[in-house]
Protein backbone atom coordinates (compact mmCIF):
# COMPACT_ATOMS: atom_id res chain seq x y z
CA UNK A 1 0.00 0.00 0.00
CA UNK A 2 2.82 2.36 0.88
CA UNK A 3 4.51 1.60 -2.48
CA UNK A 4 1.29 2.36 -4.35
CA UNK A 5 0.94 5.68 -2.60
CA UNK A 6 4.53 6.63 -3.32
CA UNK A 7 4.16 5.77 -7.01
CA UNK A 8 1.04 7.83 -7.48
CA UNK A 9 2.51 10.80 -5.63
CA UNK A 10 5.76 10.98 -7.60
CA UNK A 11 5.46 11.95 -11.25
CA UNK A 12 8.41 10.81 -13.36
CA UNK A 13 10.50 13.73 -14.60
CA UNK A 14 10.22 12.57 -18.20
CA UNK A 15 6.51 11.87 -18.11
CA UNK A 16 4.16 13.88 -20.23
CA UNK A 17 1.71 16.04 -18.28
CA UNK A 18 -1.49 14.09 -17.69
CA UNK A 19 -4.90 15.64 -17.71
CA UNK A 20 -6.83 12.88 -16.00
CA UNK A 21 -6.34 11.06 -12.73
CA UNK A 22 -5.23 7.46 -13.09
CA UNK A 23 -8.16 5.41 -11.77
CA UNK A 24 -5.75 2.87 -10.31
CA UNK A 25 -4.07 5.62 -8.30
CA UNK A 26 -7.40 6.94 -7.11
CA UNK A 27 -8.48 3.45 -6.04
CA UNK A 28 -5.18 2.95 -4.23
CA UNK A 29 -5.63 6.22 -2.36
CA UNK A 30 -9.17 5.33 -1.37
CA UNK A 31 -8.05 1.88 -0.21
CA UNK A 32 -5.26 3.44 1.85
CA UNK A 33 -7.82 5.62 3.61
CA UNK A 34 -10.23 2.71 4.13
CA UNK A 35 -7.48 0.65 5.73
CA UNK A 36 -6.57 3.51 8.07
CA UNK A 37 -10.17 4.14 9.04
CA UNK A 38 -10.62 0.47 9.97
CA UNK A 39 -7.51 0.51 12.13
CA UNK A 40 -8.49 3.80 13.76
CA UNK A 41 -12.00 2.60 14.56
CA UNK A 42 -10.58 -0.56 16.10
CA UNK A 43 -8.48 1.65 18.39
CA UNK A 44 -11.52 3.67 19.41
CA UNK A 45 -13.06 0.42 20.62
CA UNK A 46 -9.83 -0.60 22.30
CA UNK A 47 -9.51 2.69 24.17
CA UNK A 48 -13.13 2.57 25.28
CA UNK A 49 -12.70 -0.99 26.54
CA UNK A 50 -9.51 -0.39 28.51
CA UNK A 51 -10.36 0.58 32.10
CA UNK A 52 -6.77 1.37 33.08
CA UNK A 53 -6.54 4.33 30.70
CA UNK A 54 -6.98 7.46 32.78
CA UNK A 55 -9.94 9.74 32.11
CA UNK A 56 -7.91 12.62 30.68
CA UNK A 57 -5.75 10.32 28.57
CA UNK A 58 -8.85 8.53 27.29
CA UNK A 59 -10.42 11.84 26.34
CA UNK A 60 -7.26 12.98 24.56
CA UNK A 61 -6.85 9.69 22.68
CA UNK A 62 -10.48 9.59 21.59
CA UNK A 63 -10.30 13.21 20.50
CA UNK A 64 -7.23 12.50 18.39
CA UNK A 65 -8.67 9.30 16.95
CA UNK A 66 -12.01 10.85 16.09
CA UNK A 67 -10.51 13.98 14.53
CA UNK A 68 -8.20 11.77 12.46
CA UNK A 69 -11.16 9.65 11.38
CA UNK A 70 -13.30 12.63 10.39
CA UNK A 71 -10.36 14.23 8.58
CA UNK A 72 -9.64 11.09 6.57
CA UNK A 73 -13.33 10.62 5.76
CA UNK A 74 -13.45 14.14 4.36
CA UNK A 75 -10.22 13.57 2.45
CA UNK A 76 -11.67 10.38 1.01
CA UNK A 77 -14.64 12.29 -0.36
CA UNK A 78 -12.35 14.93 -1.79
CA UNK A 79 -10.17 12.32 -3.48
CA UNK A 80 -13.16 10.47 -4.89
CA UNK A 81 -14.47 13.68 -6.47
CA UNK A 82 -11.13 15.21 -7.44
CA UNK A 83 -10.65 16.18 -11.08
CA UNK A 84 -7.31 17.96 -10.89
CA UNK A 85 -4.23 15.74 -11.24
CA UNK A 86 -2.07 18.18 -9.30
CA UNK A 87 -4.57 18.48 -6.48
CA UNK A 88 -4.98 14.71 -6.39
CA UNK A 89 -1.24 14.21 -5.91
CA UNK A 90 -1.27 16.64 -3.01
CA UNK A 91 -4.30 14.99 -1.47
CA UNK A 92 -2.81 11.52 -1.84
CA UNK A 93 0.27 12.78 -0.03
CA UNK A 94 -1.92 14.20 2.73
CA UNK A 95 -3.04 10.67 3.62
CA UNK A 96 0.45 10.19 4.98
CA UNK A 97 1.78 13.60 5.94
CA UNK A 98 -1.30 15.14 7.53
CA UNK A 99 -2.38 12.18 9.62
CA UNK A 100 0.55 9.79 10.22
CA UNK A 101 -1.82 7.05 11.30
CA UNK A 102 0.75 4.25 11.43
CA UNK A 103 3.87 6.19 12.22
CA UNK A 104 2.35 8.18 15.07
CA UNK A 105 -1.33 7.81 15.98
CA UNK A 106 -1.51 4.05 16.48
CA UNK A 107 1.81 3.96 18.39
CA UNK A 108 0.48 6.79 20.56
CA UNK A 109 -2.61 4.74 21.40
CA UNK A 110 -0.70 1.59 22.26
CA UNK A 111 2.08 3.32 24.15
CA UNK A 112 -0.30 5.45 26.23
CA UNK A 113 -2.30 2.30 26.95
CA UNK A 114 0.87 0.53 28.04
CA UNK A 115 1.99 3.46 30.15
CA UNK A 116 -1.35 3.81 31.89
CA UNK A 117 -1.53 0.06 32.55
CA UNK A 118 1.87 0.33 34.20
CA UNK A 119 0.99 3.33 36.36
CA UNK A 120 -2.61 2.40 37.22
CA UNK A 121 -2.30 -1.37 37.59
CA UNK A 122 1.19 -2.85 37.49
CA UNK A 123 3.02 -0.51 39.84
CA UNK A 124 0.24 -0.44 42.48
CA UNK A 125 0.04 -4.24 42.26
CA UNK A 126 3.77 -4.58 42.91
CA UNK A 127 3.53 -2.10 45.78
CA UNK A 128 0.74 -4.19 47.31
CA UNK A 129 2.75 -7.36 46.81
CA UNK A 130 5.75 -5.72 48.42
CA UNK A 131 3.65 -4.87 51.48
CA UNK A 132 1.98 -8.27 51.69
CA UNK A 133 5.18 -10.24 51.17
CA UNK A 134 7.02 -8.19 53.80
CA UNK A 135 4.20 -8.80 56.23
CA UNK A 136 4.39 -12.54 55.61
CA UNK A 137 8.18 -12.49 55.95
CA UNK A 138 7.94 -10.70 59.28
CA UNK A 139 5.31 -13.13 60.56
CA UNK A 140 7.34 -16.18 59.58
CA UNK A 141 10.45 -14.62 61.07
CA UNK A 142 8.61 -14.22 64.37
CA UNK A 143 7.76 -17.92 64.21
CA UNK A 144 11.46 -18.74 64.06
CA UNK A 145 11.80 -19.36 60.34
CA UNK A 146 15.00 -18.26 58.63
CA UNK A 147 13.88 -15.83 55.93
CA UNK A 148 17.24 -14.19 55.26
CA UNK A 149 17.17 -15.52 51.71
CA UNK A 150 14.32 -13.12 50.90
CA UNK A 151 16.25 -9.97 51.78
CA UNK A 152 18.03 -9.48 48.46
CA UNK A 153 14.90 -10.09 46.42
CA UNK A 154 12.84 -7.69 48.52
CA UNK A 155 15.51 -5.01 48.21
CA UNK A 156 15.61 -5.49 44.45
CA UNK A 157 11.81 -5.43 44.28
CA UNK A 158 11.80 -1.99 45.89
CA UNK A 159 14.45 -0.80 43.44
CA UNK A 160 12.51 -2.12 40.43
CA UNK A 161 9.33 -0.39 41.61
CA UNK A 162 11.26 2.88 41.83
CA UNK A 163 12.65 2.28 38.34
CA UNK A 164 9.15 1.65 36.97
CA UNK A 165 7.89 4.87 38.54
CA UNK A 166 10.78 6.85 37.06
CA UNK A 167 10.46 5.28 33.61
CA UNK A 168 6.72 5.90 33.29
CA UNK A 169 6.62 9.37 34.81
CA UNK A 170 5.17 11.84 32.30
CA UNK A 171 5.37 9.41 29.39
CA UNK A 172 1.67 9.47 28.53
CA UNK A 173 1.57 13.26 28.54
CA UNK A 174 4.65 13.42 26.33
CA UNK A 175 3.16 10.98 23.84
CA UNK A 176 -0.17 12.77 23.72
CA UNK A 177 1.60 16.05 22.95
CA UNK A 178 3.04 14.78 19.67
CA UNK A 179 1.48 15.92 16.39
CA UNK A 180 1.91 14.65 12.82
CA UNK A 181 3.71 17.91 12.00
CA UNK A 182 6.23 17.20 14.76
CA UNK A 183 6.71 13.67 13.46
CA UNK A 184 7.25 15.03 9.93
CA UNK A 185 10.00 17.26 11.30
CA UNK A 186 11.56 14.53 13.45
CA UNK A 187 10.82 10.88 12.75
CA UNK A 188 12.37 9.80 16.05
CA UNK A 189 10.06 11.63 18.46
CA UNK A 190 8.33 8.43 19.59
CA UNK A 191 11.61 6.64 20.26
CA UNK A 192 12.27 8.29 23.62
CA UNK A 193 8.94 7.39 25.26
CA UNK A 194 9.09 3.94 23.64
CA UNK A 195 12.51 3.38 25.17
CA UNK A 196 11.30 4.50 28.61
CA UNK A 197 8.37 2.10 28.49
CA UNK A 198 10.67 -0.70 27.40
CA UNK A 199 12.82 -0.01 30.43
CA UNK A 200 9.76 0.04 32.69
CA UNK A 201 8.64 -3.27 31.25
CA UNK A 202 12.06 -4.79 31.87
CA UNK A 203 11.99 -3.55 35.45
CA UNK A 204 8.55 -5.08 35.88
CA UNK A 205 9.82 -8.40 34.59
CA UNK A 206 12.65 -8.35 37.12
CA UNK A 207 10.22 -7.35 39.87
CA UNK A 208 8.03 -10.32 38.99
CA UNK A 209 11.04 -12.62 39.31
CA UNK A 210 11.74 -11.12 42.73
CA UNK A 211 8.16 -11.63 43.84
CA UNK A 212 8.14 -15.25 42.69
CA UNK A 213 11.45 -15.91 44.43
CA UNK A 214 10.11 -14.60 47.74
CA UNK A 215 6.80 -16.35 47.30
CA UNK A 216 8.62 -19.67 46.84
CA UNK A 217 10.29 -19.25 50.22
CA UNK A 218 7.07 -18.57 52.09
CA UNK A 219 5.09 -21.57 53.26
Amino acid at each position, binding site marked *: *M*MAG*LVVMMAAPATAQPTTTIDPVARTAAEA*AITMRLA*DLNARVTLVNQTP*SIGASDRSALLSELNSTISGLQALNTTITNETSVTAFRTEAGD*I*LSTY*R*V*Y*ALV*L*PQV*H*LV*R*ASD*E*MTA*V*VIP*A*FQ*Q*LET*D*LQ*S*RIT*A*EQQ*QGKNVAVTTAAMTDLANQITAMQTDTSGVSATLLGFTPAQWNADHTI*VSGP*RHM*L*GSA*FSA*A*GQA*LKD*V*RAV*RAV*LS
Partner: protein
Amino acid sequence: MNARLRVIAPAFALMAGLSLAACSGAKTPTSTPTTVPAAPTTVAASTFNPPATTAPSGQTSDSALDQQIQGVSNSLNQVNGDLANADKAAANGG
Protein backbone atom coordinates in the same frame (compact mmCIF):
# COMPACT_ATOMS: atom_id res chain seq x y z
CA MET B 1 -14.60 -32.26 62.65
CA ASN B 2 -15.01 -33.42 59.12
CA ALA B 3 -18.02 -32.65 56.96
CA ARG B 4 -19.73 -36.01 57.45
CA LEU B 5 -19.51 -35.73 61.25
CA ARG B 6 -20.92 -32.24 61.05
CA VAL B 7 -23.91 -33.56 59.18
CA ILE B 8 -24.76 -36.55 61.35
CA ALA B 9 -23.77 -35.17 64.76
CA PRO B 10 -26.94 -33.14 65.31
CA ALA B 11 -29.09 -36.17 64.58
CA PHE B 12 -27.18 -38.31 67.12
CA ALA B 13 -27.33 -35.54 69.69
CA LEU B 14 -31.07 -35.30 69.27
CA MET B 15 -31.54 -39.05 69.58
CA ALA B 16 -29.28 -39.18 72.64
CA GLY B 17 -31.22 -36.40 74.27
CA LEU B 18 -34.51 -38.18 73.78
CA SER B 19 -33.09 -41.47 75.17
CA LEU B 20 -31.69 -39.81 78.27
CA ALA B 21 -34.96 -38.09 78.90
CA ALA B 22 -36.83 -41.39 78.70
CA CYS B 23 -34.39 -43.26 81.03
CA SER B 24 -34.35 -40.55 83.69
CA GLY B 25 -38.07 -40.57 84.11
CA ALA B 26 -38.37 -37.08 82.94
CA LYS B 27 -41.83 -35.82 82.43
CA THR B 28 -43.04 -36.51 78.94
CA PRO B 29 -43.48 -33.29 77.07
CA THR B 30 -47.07 -32.36 76.56
CA SER B 31 -46.43 -31.73 72.89
CA THR B 32 -44.18 -34.44 71.59
CA PRO B 33 -42.69 -33.54 68.27
CA THR B 34 -44.05 -35.84 65.64
CA THR B 35 -41.16 -35.40 63.30
CA VAL B 36 -37.45 -35.20 63.76
CA PRO B 37 -35.96 -32.15 62.14
CA ALA B 38 -34.28 -33.22 58.96
CA ALA B 39 -30.55 -33.31 59.16
CA PRO B 40 -28.96 -30.71 56.91
CA THR B 41 -27.96 -32.17 53.61
CA THR B 42 -25.39 -29.52 52.92
CA VAL B 43 -22.83 -27.76 55.03
CA ALA B 44 -22.27 -24.06 54.75
CA ALA B 45 -19.51 -23.18 52.33
CA SER B 46 -17.70 -21.22 55.00
CA THR B 47 -16.80 -24.50 56.75
CA PHE B 48 -14.65 -25.49 53.76
CA ASN B 49 -11.87 -22.95 54.14
CA PRO B 50 -8.80 -24.61 52.72
CA PRO B 51 -6.50 -24.82 55.74
CA ALA B 52 -3.36 -25.45 53.69
CA THR B 53 -3.36 -21.97 52.11
CA THR B 54 -4.46 -20.01 55.14
CA ALA B 55 -1.65 -17.82 56.36
CA PRO B 56 -1.17 -16.80 59.99
CA SER B 57 -3.90 -14.53 61.27
CA GLY B 58 -3.94 -11.13 59.61
CA GLN B 59 -1.62 -12.13 56.78
CA THR B 60 -2.32 -12.44 53.10
CA SER B 61 -2.97 -16.08 52.28
CA ASP B 62 -0.91 -18.08 49.84
CA SER B 63 -3.79 -18.25 47.41
CA ALA B 64 -4.33 -14.50 47.61
CA LEU B 65 -0.65 -13.90 46.93
CA ASP B 66 -0.78 -16.25 43.96
CA GLN B 67 -3.82 -14.41 42.60
CA GLN B 68 -2.01 -11.09 42.93
CA ILE B 69 1.01 -12.49 41.12
CA GLN B 70 -1.16 -13.90 38.35
CA GLY B 71 -2.94 -10.56 38.02
CA VAL B 72 0.26 -8.58 37.60
CA SER B 73 1.54 -11.18 35.16
CA ASN B 74 -1.60 -10.75 33.06
CA SER B 75 -1.18 -6.98 33.09
CA LEU B 76 2.41 -7.32 31.94
CA ASN B 77 1.25 -9.48 29.05
CA GLN B 78 -1.06 -6.65 28.01
CA VAL B 79 1.76 -4.12 28.27
CA ASN B 80 4.02 -6.35 26.20
CA GLY B 81 1.30 -6.67 23.56
CA ASP B 82 0.88 -2.92 23.37
CA LEU B 83 4.60 -2.33 22.99
CA ALA B 84 4.68 -4.90 20.17
CA ASN B 85 1.63 -3.37 18.46
CA ALA B 86 3.15 0.11 18.66
CA ASP B 87 6.34 -1.19 17.05
CA LYS B 88 4.39 -3.06 14.39
CA ALA B 89 2.37 0.04 13.44
CA ALA B 90 5.46 2.21 13.32
CA ALA B 91 7.23 -0.32 11.12
CA ASN B 92 4.31 -0.15 8.69
CA GLY B 93 5.08 3.56 8.26
CA GLY B 94 2.84 6.33 7.06
